[in-house]
């Protein structure tokens, strides 16, 4: 364990935690409709949007109406993006003259970006026109993240409101999320990235001759504007195939640090926003504590796995950490940190090839995604995901103090239990059934690059990444086939809305309840003990659900590696 590695990781964590309060406070003011310093610029813009779209901002919605608005908006986005890909050959900003995207791939990609997954079974630089990248993918990067934020805020409102039939207005939440939070940070961030060398242009690809005298095509494009929201919105869809390992996406150590911060800053800050909105900062802190605790554990496992390296390689005389699939300029620490960050969140941007991680190192991203990406998690999605686990923890453990379990004064009854169970059940089932379907069919198995347990890991990873809306991949699997494009396409849809709808139902149910006063007889949902219980519930539910599959994948692969067995 090198001191410089630890130092870099600590620096990242300190910066992240330092940003929690200021950003969290700012977001609280945004959603609470309080004055912010951006109002002068943004208020007129917001009013213009409402006037053009004829949105009644004062109209509050019940959870069903909220969900309906959300679904309509997202599926319109899906259709638009699908059509845009099919028609890109006839549309401007296509200097490389890319033809229409294959329908099954277009469907997969449209679903992928609409659901905040950004699973890519294509290479950006050889498939998508600049128009598709900018007006299609980047737009969805913004609105899918804003959708996640809206759901999280609606859930918090549901938890705080008393005997109310409404949880807010989706259109307002969506608009304010984009205008006040995502857009300003992206504008500043993109400029900083450009200053570090991230490209931003609409030029045709360059063809240069290398020192060897061979011609090489260098892909260009409006990268910086997409790069920042890719991280900030925990989307993860790279402009280029190589994602953030590409020097045009992530040129310097500074951009590497900033991009990693951008991934977790909103999910971490939301815990603070949550504490402010429920009027009890400790409630937000306990969630953040559990997240940090789990994050450090997974980071440590990944780091140990990668620094230990592969004994089979070491025996060939190349001792040291595993560097396969890593950028030398980032080294083990920054690769491991990024890997843990991007899969703790539902980001999926990579600066390292996950497929090349050691079995133990690769277990970390896979398992983090399987846990439901609640360790910080996606923008909005992480918070509502962990709150589902909070409800489950309170329900199971809270009974032990001899009262009907209650969270923030609201009783947790059968309706909430049902929805919380569904929110955990649906993604888990999707991962297991999807993977089982893949390993049981020729269409599924034929895409596998590596035989043996690693092949199973690749399939598990693909469906986990889809259901968890992560988007990163064990890229040994050839996912651009009809089977995988469709299977993972539907997996992403189920994984996204199979959680959002139960969460909104919980919000609606909880909003209608009256609150009970807390007392010494009340189960405390703050403090170290509860943070531990919450982390424990996340781990145990995840472990119990996926342990058999993981045992046949990364676990056995790791053990076989130690015994020197290859396939």
């Amino acid at each position: 364990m090198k001191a410089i590695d630890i130092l870099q990781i600590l620096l990242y964590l300190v910066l992240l935690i330092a940003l929690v309060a200021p950003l969290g406070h700012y977001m609280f003011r945004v959603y609470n409709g309080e004055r912010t310093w951006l109002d002068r610029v943004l208020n007129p813009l917001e009013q213009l949007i409402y006037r053009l779209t004829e949105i009644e901002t004062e109209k509050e919605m019940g959870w069903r109406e909220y969900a309906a608005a959300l679904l309509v908006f997202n599926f319109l986005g899906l259709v638009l993006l699908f059509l845009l890909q099919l028609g890109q050959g006839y549309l401007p900003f296509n200097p490389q003259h890319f033809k229409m995207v294959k329908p099954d791939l277009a469907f997969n990609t449209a679903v992928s970006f609409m659901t905040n997954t950004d699973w890519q079974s294509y290479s950006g630089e050889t498939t998508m026109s600049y128009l598709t990248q900018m007006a299609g993918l980047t737009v969805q990067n913004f609105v899918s993240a804003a959708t996640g934020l809206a759901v999280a805020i609606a859930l918090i409102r549901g938890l705080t409101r008393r005997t109310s039939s409404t949880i807010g207005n989706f259109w307002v939440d969506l608009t304010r999320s984009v205008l006040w939070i995502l857009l300003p940070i992206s504008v500043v961030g993109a400029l900083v990235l450009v200053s570090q060398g991230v490209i931003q242009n609409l030029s045709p690809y360059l063809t240069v001759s290398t020192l060897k005298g061979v011609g090489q095509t260098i892909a260009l494009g409006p990268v910086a504007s997409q790069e920042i929201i890719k991280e900030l919105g925990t989307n993860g869809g790279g402009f280029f195939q190589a994602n953030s390992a590409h020097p045009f996406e992530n040129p310097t150590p500074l951009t590497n640090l900033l991009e990693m911060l951008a991934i977790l800053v909103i999910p971490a800050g939301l815990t603070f926003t949550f504490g402010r909105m429920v009027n009890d900062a400790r409630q937000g802190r306990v969630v953040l504590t559990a997240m940090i605790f789990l994050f450090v554990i997974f980071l440590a496992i990944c780091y140990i796995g990668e620094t230990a390296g592969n004994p089979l390689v070491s025996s060939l005389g190349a001792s040291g950490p595993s560097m396969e699939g890593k950028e030398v300029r980032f080294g083990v620490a920054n690769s491991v940190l990024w890997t843990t960050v991007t899969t703790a969140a539902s980001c999926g941007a990579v600066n390292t090839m996950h497929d090349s991680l050691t079995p133990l190192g690769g277990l970390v991203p896979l398992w983090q995604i399987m846990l439901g990406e609640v360790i910080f998690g996606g923008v909005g999605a992480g918070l509502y995901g962990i709150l589902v686990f909070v409800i489950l923890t309170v329900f199971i453990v809270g009974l032990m103090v001899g009262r009907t379990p209650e969270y923030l004064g609201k009783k947790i009854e059968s309706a909430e239990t049902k929805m919380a169970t569904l929110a955990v059940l649906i993604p888990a089932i999707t991962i297991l059934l999807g993977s089982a379907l893949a390993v049981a069919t020729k269409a599924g198995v034929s895409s596998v690059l590596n035989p043996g347990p690693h092949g199973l890991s690749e399939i598990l990873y693909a469906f986990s990444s889809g259901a968890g809306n992560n988007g990163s991949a064990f890229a040994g699997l050839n996912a651009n086939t009809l089977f995988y494009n469709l299977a993972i396409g539907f997996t992403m849809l189920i994984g996204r809305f199979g959680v959002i709808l139960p969460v909104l139902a919980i919000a609606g149910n909880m909003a209608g309840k009256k609150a009970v006063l807390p007392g010494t007889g009340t189960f405390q949902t703050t403090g170290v003990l509860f943070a531990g219980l919450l982390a424990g519930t996340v781990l145990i539910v995840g472990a119990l659900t996926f342990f058999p599959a993981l045992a046949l994948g990364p676990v056995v692969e790791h053990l076989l590696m130690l015994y020197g067995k290859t396939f």
Partner: protein
Amino acid sequence: MNNHDISTSGKQEALVEDYNKHKPVTMPGSPGTKKVPGGFNQAMLSRAVIDAFFKLNPRVLWANPVIFVVEIMAVLTTFFTIRDGISGPATNFWFDGQIAIWLWVTVLFANFAEALAEGRGKAQAAALRRTRRETRAKKLIGEQVEEFAASQLRKGDIVLAEAGDIIPGDGEIIEGIASVDESAVTGESAPVIRESGGDRSSVTGGTRVLSDWIKIRITANPGETFLDQMIHLVEGARRQKTPNEIALSILLAGLTIIFLLVVATLEPFAVYSGILISLPVLAALLVCLIPTTIGGLLSAIGIAGMDRLLKRNILAMSGRAVEAAGDVDVLLLDKTGTITLGNRLAVEFLPAPGISPEKLADAAQLSSLADETPEGRSIVVLAKEKYNLRERDLSSLGVTFVPFTAQSRMSGVNLSDKEIRKGAADAIEDYLHAQGGALSPEVKNVVEEIAKKGGTPLIVAENALALGVVYLKDVVKGGIRERFTQLRRMGIKTVMITGDNPLTAAAIAAEAGVDEFLAEATPETKLKLIREYQAKGHLVAMTGDGTNDAPALAQADVGVAMSSGTQAAKEAGNMVDLDSNPTKLIEVVEIGKQLLMTRGALTTFSIANDIAKYFAIIPAMFAAAYPQLGVLNIMGLATPQSAILSAVIFNALIIVTLIPLALRGVAYRPLGANIILRRNMLIYGLGGLLTPFIGIKIIDLILTALGIV
């Protein structure tokens, strides 16, 4: 001060106190033959064993999805074992057969737990049915009396019940007064007085008139009477799942579905990895993972909770009420009978200036010798204790006793040379004026001071002279202060309800240690108080007996009606206390909490168990293809087969091991939520994690030693 009222309520309190001393431990007629440890007799155990087999009926078991899944697995495993035994390669016949047997045993154990919990109720219902024999009713038609079968009575009929008659149905007395033996319903053998009008006018069918006669207006049709209700309740015939039980069932069903898919998808994953897993092994894994422990014990816990109330002679009209009791955080307690003994006792003699204490005590004792009220007796006793004044025989002294009347509001004695009177300050003052005397300012001061302290001053006068004051105190029950401290630690607020003036109420409230009090309470202010607390987000429990308590009882989250109370009160509340002892409200809350705790503890235990089972089964399952996974066999189980079998056996045995805990409830202590949580987490969370590691290892050692696998 109305002495008459005090004396009767005092008598009733004395009855309750007396009753508490000789409280019957079991319900009426509960078959108490051969006892076995755990409070069950041999007959109940064997009945439960038989019922466990009847409950194998899938249509019955369907209500419990977790155990239903186990049954399906047991059927499948049995089928495959027999099929392979007949046709296929019967290499694993013995092993598969054992798994099948243990899966069946798992189902039977769960059924047994439920049957056992139901058993006690069934026995009680049978006993109650015996008391509900066919009675004749003397129906009044006009002035005529006609005999009918009680089952033909309908609401609104008027019947006559005379000494020796069994009261034919629930009703309201419209005329007459009688002593009634209610032991058939309450198990209490001391007769109670029932009379028309007021709060003691309701009678219950099945009870017996001992003396006098009453006319009753029937208020319940046959089949809807209190006795019928009680039979249904104890029998659990109409037992519906409570809200929290439903919520927990949903979670358990969710876990079952997840594990069903985990195991179902494991098959293709294994095939992909080149491993074949037999169906019995998959079934074993599934049954070990789904929460069979809590699934098997859940309904037993609920029934046992109702049962614990029943043992304390409280009938909960629904399980919902028991659960609500656990959530209650405000208790409205009637002062009289709950907080204070209900009668005021003399604690001090305060003589007027120039009078010796002995003289005052002597006069007070003389005036009280014939006074049979608790107050009167306490004066006699105090005088004896403090000044060694012996009781004297009134007749030998040649005195006449002047009893208390509503007009004079005094009592006393007339001796040959003097009159002694005792009574409230204003009554004695009038008396003194009439005699030509007056109340001295010193005595008036003492009177005021006592009133300020919440006591009752009683002035003793001899002829025209006030001798001094007897300090009567409302005596707070021993230990009640500690009880309230405990409740406060549990986060429960106590509110004393009293008809006293605020000054008196405040003094008693301070002495008893209640958090708040409501003085000069009326049914309306009581109802208002409950609404206020509920609006602030509290859950309120109260007791009541009068018709005017009915609205408050209905409004409260938990309303315990006294069985001695009116029909209206009983219908408004969601529990009935057959002993009519308001102190039991505290126990009701504790039982509710214990019920929820037991559920939570066993759920946590059940889920925590799964970790160890994985470590037993997963390496065993894949041992053939990936011997390297043996690293995970941290328990060092002998063979793959013994590992799987040990896990299944542990899973079955843990259900039967935990039956006593499920029926008894987890250890309950009145502490704050944080301490309880830490304690229970340690026992059931950590314990649930570690126990199966030890248990499975021990079973494995035994299996290996016996050479079974």
